[in-house]
């Protein structure tokens, strides 16, 4: 809980500063836009967080967005598939890729970093090939307005992606923090061998995490595709996996595994989007965008490390 509090205070302070310097920050349009982005990024960040809790990593998310995006656009416009069928197909495809990653990691024993790095390269290349390196979009095609509205509309002023995020976060909170599966995830992340010696089916648990991450990346990918409405296969989704990893780590997930919370990931996601927004609103040259994010994340984790160190002093007591 303390970990979330620290990052939450950082978020609150940042919001306060931006709001004071540029009151437009609190304008309805700006908040709405931010909430929409938080919604889309938050959904796949949760998936990444769960993978990280098992001690793994998923670098392929951004490329999966590109691949899903062009496939979805082509299915709906060129092939004339009904919207829901197209969406379900690509989400299922994304889950399939997650399953593949999970099996390569648990059955063949490859390192998650390597497997998903290969995915990052492979899916990007595949997306460009499938789209013949042309930007794909949904143009003026009809028949999937309801689906589109999930990315672009709002209910009672709250953007749909944000609402979706809240629903997904609630479900995943129960899964991670209350269910048997969630406990197994933490156990596997902390000590896979000891979990196995306790009868936990560790390979299934880990594979499951990649499938969940695939599912959430699929949902987020569909939303992002509709949101941008134009998918350039060579750039769509670039670096997005790093946003997710950064959000999870800022939110308290340890890359060593076994630590993290849904609440932390949500706050981490929000923090990153506020930072993006800050660059725009404070008139910082947008070329510095990544530099600002990198610096703030670094300061955040240093502060966290220093906080952690202090109370552990004096614990080196006499128990031999």
């Amino acid at each position: 809980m303390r970990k979330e509090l620290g990052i939450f205070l950082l978020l609150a302070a940042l919001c306060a500063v931006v709001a004071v310097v540029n009151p437009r920050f609190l304008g309805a349009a700006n908040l709405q836009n931010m909430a929409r982005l938080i919604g889309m990024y938050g959904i796949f960040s949760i998936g990444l967080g769960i993978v990280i809790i098992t001690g793994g990593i998923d670098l392929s998310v951004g490329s999966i967005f590109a691949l899903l995006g062009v496939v979805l656009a082509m299915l709906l416009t060129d092939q004339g598939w009904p919207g829901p069928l197209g969406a379900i197909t690509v989400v299922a495809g994304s889950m399939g890729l997650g399953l593949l990653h999970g099996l390569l990691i648990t059955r063949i024993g490859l390192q998650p970093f390597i497997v998903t790095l290969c995915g990052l390269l492979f899916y990007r290349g595949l997306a460009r090939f499938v789209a013949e390196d042309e930007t794909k979009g949904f143009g003026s095609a009809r028949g999937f307005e309801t689906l589109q509205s999930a990315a672009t509309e709002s209910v009672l002023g709250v953007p749909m992606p944000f609402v979706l995020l809240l629903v997904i976060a609630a479900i995943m909170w129960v899964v991670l923090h209350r269910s048997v599966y969630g406990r197994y995830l933490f156990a596997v992340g902390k000590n896979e061998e000891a979990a196995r010696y306790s009868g936990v089916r560790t390979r299934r648990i880990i594979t499951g995490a990649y499938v969940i991450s695939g599912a959430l990346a699929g949902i987020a990918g569909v939303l992002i595709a509709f949101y941008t409405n134009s998918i350039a296969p060579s750039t769509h989704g670039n670096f997005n996996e790093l946003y997710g990893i950064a959000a999870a780590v800022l939110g308290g997930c340890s890359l060593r595994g076994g630590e993290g919370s849904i609440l932390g990931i949500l706050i981490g996601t929000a923090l990153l989007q506020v930072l993006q927004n800050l660059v725009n609103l404070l008139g910082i040259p947008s070329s510095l965008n990544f530099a600002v994010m990198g610096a703030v994340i670094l300061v955040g984790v240093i502060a966290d490390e220093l906080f952690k160190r202090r109370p552990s002093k004096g614990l080196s007591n006499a128990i031999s």
Partner: protein
Amino acid sequence: MTITPPVLEMAGITKRFSGVVALDQVNLTVGQGEVVALIGENGAGKSTLMKILGGVHAPDAGTIRVGGTPVIIRSVGDAMARGIGFVHQELNVLDNLDIAGNVFLGREPVHGGPLRLIDRKRLHAETDALLERLGIGVSSRTSLAALSLAQRQMVEIARALSQNARLVLMDEPTSSLTLSETERLLQVVTELRAQGVSIIYISHRLGEVEQIADRVEVLRDGKNAGTLTGEGIRHDALVTLMVGRDIAAADKAQAAATKTPRFQVRGLQTARYPERTVSFSIGAGEILGFAGLVGAGRTEVAQALFGVERARGGSVLLDNKAISITSPQDAIASGIYLIPEDRRRFGLITDMVLRENVTLPALRRVAPAGLIQRGAEQETARNACGSLNVKAPSVEATASTLSGGNQQKVVLAKWLSLGPKVLLFDEPTRGIDVGAKAEIYEQMRTLARAGAAILMISSDMEEILHVSDRVAVMHEGGITGVLDRADFSEEAIMRLAVGRTEKAKAVAAA
């Protein structure tokens, strides 16, 4: 007696940690060429005293004299500069270097010149000389990765000697060694003594202490509890001083074990020794000791029976019914549980709290519909820990904060509530103090009385002789003999452990 002042003299050492007195006016003197054993239960203050000697903690009161001169020790480096070397329980050696590289790590002899290139010739010559002094028949160029645990320990000793240590502190040096390796180490200790090197020897194994110590200092609750010398160093006297009371000798194993075999293993083949098969049976209520040298394949048998390593062949019968075990889930479903050798790696998730550890194997029992009921979970954990007398502030304590003995009880607590039919203990009391040991033996006996079949792998000869109803001895993947209680003796077991079967009874293959 002699004019030379003692090598080490610690007097009136007192240390408090946030108000709690860890050491209270403790004295410890070590003469030249003297082997002093320092014993006491966990928490008695041995480690604190040694950390003060190593400069990790500063004493609140008291003086330390080395060779008669008062000194202040601020770091391990300080201690080494004054001729005190340390051989730790957890080995501090680097796998990726050779022996010479480890022995002289940080103090490599260098050629002159700005590049400070390592003088390899001198490095190896000096290391080889040390290895010879210790009587290890390996070259200084051998990679650490190729060495056994015992040999690595010798490397640590060589490192201490390379710094001209006049006093070497050994903290539980034999806790992971086999019987023959232990013998070798004790021999080295004796040789070092003859060379005038003094030794502080910390161990829970009282047999070793009896064998080599010139003097024993016993600590209890942070105070000197007594000193024994020469003939006075006897097992019962040591125990009495350590615990401050007489431990009722754990009830001798009883032949009351029923003869009906509860657990039968036939022709088991492990991946480590595919050409050998292992067969044995354990009756309900029986404790079968598994003796042998490390590497004899005992752990592999236990791992195959628990399903963490797949067996190459063989069959397993539980209550005369054949069962198939290909995963830990299979074993657990049949009521066969393993208490593994390395509890911090395999037995527990040390970063998790006791509650989470205890309920992990049967989480679904406290999670109807897949959602964990915190109240039920806590109660389960509390009951399990309570019945084993685990000493912890609460079930919400992190497992890593517990002592070794209490951690082992938590591992046991995981299985206890599941109604064990067969328990496989692998080195159940390694690194555990006398008090907790007695409790674990008692618990094993209680489980046996309730009808469980118990397999106990142990490299501790006292433990094997004391706890087992029968002893099976393994050598290079096969069972060389099974001894009944009447035939128990250290010699008989050792003979079988090194593979001499001629004098043993015919193997009672089930």
